[in-house]
Every structure is written in structure tokens, then in C-alpha cells.
């Protein structure tokens, strides 16, 4: 009998290469009347980075974070403050924000990961809200008004003011993050992480350093959130940073994206982020078209109901269920 083949290089590189191709080609199609989609693609990319980290945390190690927007904002604010009030050069501000984000995740993770399941969710929920409150009310962060005159990331004029170039910048980062995450899941570390999710005690009995790994993934998720925050502050926004983005609602939305994408899959998380961002845009546009002023409220209602519906009916996520359905039909046809 034949032993199973390890995944061939073709299989391994297939996905990322196709993905790269899509990244290069698709934004070019957004011309003329579709140019407004470009900023959407930017923020979608930021959410993709956030969701990748959260998928590794929730889907693979099985630790829930209901306060992830807090790390996102922390990265953004540290970067912005470093570049303005603390007078650091841009590169230094970026590095500082990333390190600070990782450190914050290290400290909070160390304390919080000892808690089991729902208490962990509560603790992260509280932490996210506390951070959000600090962003909104602290004098250092400029309170509700925010920070102004932020520098832009600039490589000799690129991306400058070009929305298209910004999309490429953000999605170049997304691509790297996704490829690294995929690599991780296919590595022995990825196996150990999933083992932790299935049965912590059995994994520990096999020598898997359970707490250390959980903490490392938590730090990685925090680091990626800080990275998204840095990009938010220095690429996405028009030189202004305010606290509205880093709300409890966003933390819940991020969890929704992860659940939508099936929790156990990096590609799924990516799709979850894109679908959600797309849905947001569709709903907003539809609302404008029919003149419904309360469209934001309705959107929140929609996503809240979606989250509840998904968790009640298919906790394994919609994307895998749909994919399985599609695969079955395709197989029947061929």
C-alpha cells in the first residue's frame, strides 16, 4: 500500500500564486465609476490581516478574543503618536507600534490565557472595551477628535495619493501575511496548534508546550492587529486617526468574519473578510438608493442576526458548508 504523499510543491504554491495573480489583476478593473471600490479594497485588506490573526487564534488554538479591535487601535494610535507627538521618524514609529502591539498582546495573553473558554471571552471583551474607552476619552489620543497631520507611508512618492497604489501596498502585505499563515498551518507547529484545539490534555501528554504555543499565537494575532493598525493610520486614512473605527462592534464583526469563513481555514477567513466588507458596501449602497436613512442600524441588525444565525445553525462556518455543497454538485455533474 502506498503511504500518503506529502503535499507537493505544486499544491503548496498553487493557492498563493493564484491569489497573487488576482491581487495584481483585479484592482486594475476598478476604473471610472468603480474607482470608489479602491478604498473599500484597502480596508478589506486591513480586515483580512486582522482576520488571519484571529483565525489562527480562534480557529486553530481555539482561544476566543472578543476585543481584537483593541489591539488594532493600539497599533494605530502608538504609530500615530510616535510619528506626531513623540517626534519619531516614520520607520521608527512603525517599528515601535509593532513591537508595542506584540508586547501588549504578550502581557495580556500571559494573564488572560489561563482562563478557560467563556471567562476568556469575557476578559477579552472587557479589555477591548477598556481600550476603546481609552482611545475615545484619553487626552493623549486626542479623545473623540483624534489625531491629525499624520505622515503618510512614502517610498519616494509611492503610493502618494493614488488609491490604486495604496491597494497594492495593503494587499502586498496581505499576501505575505496569508502565505506565512498558510505555511504555519502546514508546519509541525500548525499541527501542534490544532492538536491543542482538539484536546489540550492529550496534546500536553505528548509534549506539546500548550501554554507557550497559545501565548505565541496570541502574540502573533496581536502583532498582526498592530500591523493592520499601522497601515490604517499611515495608508488608509487621510492623515487623520479617530477612535470610531476601534469599537466593540468591530470586534464582533471580526469574530463574525472568522465564523463566516469557517474558523479553521486561512482562505476561509480571507473570504469571510471580503464577503463581509462587500456586504457592508452593498447594504450601504442599497440603503442610499432606496433612501433609507437608517441603513447603518439595519446593517448592524443584519450582521448581528447573521452572527447568531451562523452560530446556531452552522457553527463550523458558512464557507466550508457552501464549499462542500458546491463540491458535491460539481462532483455529481462530472
Amino acid at each position: 500500500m502506498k503511504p500518503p504523499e506529502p503535499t507537493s510543491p505544486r499544491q503548496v504554491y498553487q493557492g498563493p500564486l493564484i491569489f497573487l495573480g488576482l491581487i495584481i489583476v483585479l484592482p486594475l478593473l476598478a476604473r471610472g465609476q468603480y474607482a470608489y471600490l479602491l478604498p473599500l479594497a484597502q480596508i478589506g485588506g486591513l480586515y483580512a490581516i486582522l482576520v488571519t490573526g484571529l483565525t489562527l487564534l480562534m480557529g486553530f488554538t481555539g482561544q476566543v478574543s472578543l476585543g481584537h479591535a483593541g489591539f488594532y487601535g493600539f497599533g494605530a494610535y502608538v504609530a500615530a503618536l510616535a510619528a506626531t507627538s513623540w517626534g519619531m521618524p516614520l520607520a521608527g514609529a512603525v517599528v515601535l507600534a509593532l513591537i508595542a502591539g506584540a508586547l501588549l498582546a504578550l502581557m495580556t495573553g500571559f494573564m488572560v490565557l489561563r482562563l478557560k473558554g467563556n471567562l476568556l471571552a469575557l476578559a477579552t471583551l472587557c479589555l477591548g472595551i477598556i481600550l476603546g474607552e481609552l482611545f475615545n476619552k484619553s487626552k493623549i489620543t486626542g479623545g473623540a477628535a483624534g489625531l491629525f497631520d499624520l505622515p503618510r507611508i512614502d517610498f519616494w512618492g509611492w503610493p502618494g495619493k493614488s488609491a490604486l497604489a495604496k491597494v497594492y501596498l495593503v494587499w502586498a502585505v496581505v499576501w505575505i501575511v496569508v502565505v506565512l499563515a498558510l505555511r504555519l498551518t502546514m508546519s509541525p507547529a500548525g499541527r501542534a496548534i490544532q492538536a491543542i484545539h482538539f484536546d489540550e490534555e492529550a496534546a500536553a501528554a505528548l509534549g506539546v508546550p500548550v501554554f507557550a504555543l497559545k501565548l505565541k499565537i496570541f502574540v502573533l494575532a496581536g502583532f498582526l492587529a498592530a500591523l493592520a493598525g499601522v497601515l490604517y493610520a499611515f495608508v488608509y486614512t487621510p492623515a487623520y486617526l479617530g477612535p470610531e473605527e476601534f469599537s466593540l462592534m468591530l470586534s464582533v464583526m471580526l469574530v463574525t468574519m472568522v465564523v463566516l469563513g469557517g474558523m479553521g481555514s486561512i482562505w476561509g477567513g480571507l473570504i469571510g473578510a471580503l464577503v463581509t466588507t462587500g456586504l457592508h458596501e452593498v447594504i450601504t449602497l442599497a440603503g442610499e438608493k432606496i433612501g433609507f436613512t437608517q441603513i447603518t442600524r439595519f446593517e448592524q441588525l443584519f450582521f448581528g442576526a447573521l452572527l447568531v444565525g451562523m452560530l446556531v445553525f452552522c457553527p463550523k462556518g458558512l464557507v466550508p458548508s457552501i464549499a462542500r455543497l458546491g463540491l458535491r454538485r460539481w462532483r455529481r455533474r462530472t
Partner: protein
Amino acid sequence: MISVMSEGDSFLEVQQVARHFGGQRALNEVSFRIPDDSLTAIIGPNGAGKTTLFNLIAGALSPTRGHVRFRGRQIASPNQACAAGIARTFQNVRLFGGLTVLDNVMVGMGGGGLMSGLLGLQSAREQERLRRKKAIYLLDNVGIAHLASHPAGEIPFGQQRLVELTRAMATEPKLLLLDEPAAGLNATETAALGRIVRQIHQQGVAVLLVEHDMSLVMNLAERILVLEHGRLIADGDPGRIQADPQVRAAYLGSEET
């Protein structure tokens, strides 16, 4: 209480161990030593404290009194137990259901550094390849290499037990703890299990197993420890144990074989 302690054996040493859960005494003054080439069985009625004893040896619990030493060191956690060379299986099979059989076996084989996972260095990939070969070899030894790509949760129960056993062996232990490995197996599977355990023992691994299947125990074990209500009431070779009146009263007598 009969106890046989050989001189100079400090492979596994359980000394006056007691373990309380709230007001309940699961284990009380249990002492024995096991040499590094033994095949020992622990028997006793349900609730006698067998799994608690296992958990103590495997580092999942700490004793309320007394100590457990493995090769001279006290084991404070499952990670330490694994590092020291103790591997175990569980009473109800605890496989990583969503992972393949092969992945299950490879979990215990290490190499799980986060940085090497992210960077995917050539040396790391080479090591992974070697681990994979070894895992398949181990699965082949017990005859289930053809199941390597199956999700572990979807194979028949008897084969799940074998996967768990292989998974434990993949950590290259010096002491293998088997918690009721024959539970739920039919006669054929049990006989096969006996052969495999004997094979493992012949390779130089000390085996300590908890079992209810008396024929398997009598067949395999060189030495039997009998627990009842948390106390060690007998300790000797199968012949002596079978003849022991206390044991018969407590356990064998009440069993319809």
C-alpha cells in the same frame, strides 16, 4: 499488605502516595517500585484509584502526600512527563479527531517551533520528511499504515486505539502507561493488542497497564499490582496474585469469568 521492593531500582518509584479530592481519598499509602524492563499490570475494581494513580505518574495530578519519582526526578506536569520519557494512552480514546491518523502520530514528534513554522527552512522540511517516514513506519508496525490519510475520528474504534498507542510510542518513551487499552475491543483485537504490547516491551520499553480483561493481564504481565479503595492490597507475579485470598475476595472472586 504485601509489597515487593527490589533493591537499587529507581526507575519508577511511588512512595507512600496519597491523593485526596475534597473529602474523598482516591489513593492512600500506595508504595511500589518498578524496574525499567518490566511489564506490570494494575488491576482492581472500579473506583479503586487506578486512573488517579496513572494521572499522578503522568504528571497530570500531584500527590496530596508522598511522592512519585521517575528516574530520580519528580514529575510536575504532563510536559515534564513526556520529556522524561513517559507516554500514556487514555481510558476513553482521546485522538485529535479532525486531524489525520498520520498527523495524530506526528504530534508527539516535535519540531513545532513557531519561527521555523513561519519561515519554512530547508533543514526543517528535511526533518519533517524524516519524521513522516518514521511515523508511517510505526503505523505499519501495527498494521494501520493504510489509514494514514484518514481523519482519526472516522476510523473504527479498534483502530483508533491502535492509533493512540502508536501516537504514544512516537514520543520514544521509556515507560508506557496504558489505561484500559483493551476496553471495547473484541477477542481478535485484544489478542493483537497483546502481541503488540509484548513487542513493545521486547524493544526495551517498560509497560504499566491498567486493565479489566483478566486473560490479557494474566497472559502479558510479569507482575500485578492490585488496588482496592485506593490501597495497594497485593503485589506479585500472576500465580501468587491469583492465589491471594484478599485479592480473590476483593476482585477476582466477584468477577464472573
